């Protein structure tokens, strides 16, 4: 696919995602006007008040008109204003992005730093006890849901050992537990994938060639095996990173990190359409961006995927 085709494809993805999100939001039971008026749990608005609010928020317009209006604003760079807090959606997203970004990077670093070397080790000690132990480990952490991990970690490392703070952010210690909790699942997946990829590569002929040159196992693993194993791994990593960026909601709620995930979920609960819309659009952009990055990385690693001439 040419660059232009990819660009058009991306734009279609964004439009489609935002339209779908809009429709789903409107279909869902619940009334944003009512939510806004009753958010403190004390007041019960009258029919007239609800009607007036609906009018004010433009909810009485036909659906397609509401969507076009929103789209028009987006093309001018304005994601609108939250029904509930009256604050600019784009400002909120931008303010929260660094936190989710740090969390995502931390989780990714853990998943890669632990998962990939782990997978290599398991492959090297194929079918010995380390391998069995490793596979048991993988199964456990793939099965445990992240909220369970979070609670266990907090009890162990904050309450009992006093090593780490329970929640909030500010210092790098605050990011350790959320990153690990978020990254554990994927580190297990990466470990399994890496192990499989490496086991796939080790019997290859070019590995025999490399061994025949008397190369040290370490260099062999890193240069010859890992580079080849990376290709399936990068797809997983790219998708995963995009997913985390969109909202490690559970980790953000449990660890009190005011990130994008929490923001989106609160918006959904309160039927805050501008927030939901802005969030979906933002996430669609993130995914498109990451797909592009992964494509570029493919080309860098696997030269055959770049365009080039054949030598005579």
């Amino acid at each position: 696919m040419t660059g232009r085709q990819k660009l058009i494809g991306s734009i279609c993805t964004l439009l489609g995602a935002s339209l779908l999100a809009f429709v789903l939001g409107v279909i869902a039971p619940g009334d944003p006007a009512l939510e806004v008026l009753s958010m403190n749990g004390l007041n019960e608005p009258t029919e007239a008040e609800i009607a007036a609010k609906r009018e004010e928020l433009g909810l009485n317009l036909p659906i397609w008109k509401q969507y076009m209006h929103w789209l028009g604003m987006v093309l001018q760079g304005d994601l609108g204003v939250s029904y509930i807090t009256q604050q600019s959606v784009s400002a909120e997203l931008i303010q929260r992005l660094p936190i989710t970004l740090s969390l995502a990077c931390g989780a990714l670093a853990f998943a890669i730093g632990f998962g990939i070397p782990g997978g290599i080790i398991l492959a090297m000690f194929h079918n010995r006890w380390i391998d069995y132990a490793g596979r048991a480990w993988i199964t456990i952490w793939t099965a445990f849901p992240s909220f369970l991990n979070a609670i266990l970690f907090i009890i162990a490392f904050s309450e009992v050992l006093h090593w780490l703070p329970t929640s909030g952010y500010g210092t790098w210690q605050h990011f350790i537990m959320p990153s690990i909790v978020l990254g554990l699942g994927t580190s297990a997946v990466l470990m399994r994938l890496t192990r499989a990829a490496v086991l796939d590569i080790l019997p290859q002929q070019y590995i025999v060639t490399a061994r025949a040159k008397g190369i040290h196992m370490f260099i062999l693993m890193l240069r010859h095996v890992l580079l080849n194993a990376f290709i399936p791994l990068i797809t997983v990593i790219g998708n995963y990173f995009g997913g985390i960026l969109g909202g490690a909601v559970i980790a953000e709620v449990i660890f009190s990190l005011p990130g994008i995930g929490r923001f989106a979920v609160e918006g959904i609960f309160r039927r805050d359409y501008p927030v939901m819309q802005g969030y979906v659009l933002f996430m669609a952009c993130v995914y498109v961006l990451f797909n592009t990055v992964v494509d570029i990385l493919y080309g860098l690693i696997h030269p055959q995927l770049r365009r080039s001439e054949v030598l005579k």
Partner: protein
Amino acid sequence: MKQRLKNIGLFFLIVSLLAGIIGCSNVANQTANHADEKEIVLAAPRDLAPGEKDAYYTSIITYVWEPLVGMGENGEPIPGLATSWEMANGAKEWIFTLRKGMKFHDGKPVNADAVVTNYKRHWEVSPKNSPFYTLDFKKSYAGLQAIEKVDEQRVKFVFEQPQPTLLYAMENFGSPIYSPDSFAENGDFKGIPAGTGPFKLVSHEKDHYMLLERNEEYYGEKAKAKQIRINVIPDADTRFSALKSGEIMGVIDLGAISPDQANQLKQNHDFSISVNKSSVSHYIHPNGTKYPFNDVKMRQAVSLLLDRKQLVDSLYGGYATPTATMINAMSPFYVEQPIEHSPEKAKKLANEVLQGKRKSVTLIVPSYGIDRYPYKAQAEWVQAVLKEIGLDVSIKILDGAAFKEAQRTGDYNLALATQGLPNMDPYTLLANYMQSHGASNKNYSLGYQNAEADALLKDVQKTLNIEERKKIYGCLLQIAAQDWPTIPLFHDATLVSSNAKLQGLNALPYGVTLPQIERKKE
């Protein structure tokens, strides 16, 4: 060579990651200790300083701003920035006298001009939503014709109609006063507002924390703590862990600690619990627009069957107060209605409605209830109990918006819900629930129709005498306890907790005694 360097880099990344985890123990403790000497750290489930676009900027419980009229222990109006008041011209005019020599945090004087500016701003932005309390001066000061400065220290309110219960509407969130410089053109705040409270707001970060500092120029008894930091920890379990691990020294605000968690701490001498009344009550709303709860006998049966004391003792640690009265006990107009518990009577009444057949009914539960209260267990309890009178209850847990939608469309039979006191004078609340066209009546599909109640409510509107009003409210409460527009269960309690090293963190009906908090002397 490049490749080798990359390899080494990767290796170090992994090593440093591991080292970081192990090596942080000392550092974390050090930071915590250091903070202890400087400030007292508390936590709340929500952001108590929503900021510039909020109607109030911060909740009143942070003691940054003060109202003209405050709320006493029993919900009665007490002096705030206004030391005294007088009613004139058949309650059409009210004159408030301000305390002398007071200054806002920014040094500006508290005088009549400032009050007038405040009210102008409040009126213009009304109605303005806030997670604490809706600011709607057009409603609470309905019929206000003018606010005049009488002299430097006195302000006069002039109304179209008599307003005998004005003071109740003005309590706390009803009359917030800030320095006029705190407002921007459009009525939002510009920057951190200057109030008159014992604490100044130093800094805050949305959904993260707020930092309060003692106001050294406070006219009354100064706050005991120099600096208080309030962190936002929305998850109940995390908040509890933070308290137990010593990371925070106390928890405040609505739902700070659950009855279950409080019971866990009771045995522990390192922590103390503080309880007080709350203006929130819990109900089961019946859908009176359809069978079987459109029949008053069925509603009576449910109220007779449910053992409120059992509920409170087993699920709420005994902290709540069982009730059959429609409004919360904190209202000065409260008249206690007797609680009757009789399973035999209940069965008889239910039988008359169901005619010996069993009926499937739906009980809807809001998801915020699951987080904050033991609603799941409560729903299951209701389910188990109602079996005895022929009702087969299926439980549906819905998120906030879907819950409200179900109530509005009448797509339910029973609903667990809470209700606070929007005004110490219960007119709005009773009208909402008991008038045929009342907002709550309609929105919750209660289907309640009672001509006598309608007439009484019309009467109350005309009655200026407080005692007379109380009498009429008494009648209405009595009707409610026989007719059951909704079925009250119990009055909640405000529950907070603090580390034993702290003293002075006591629960108030609304908030805690923040200025009293200080570390215990060793």
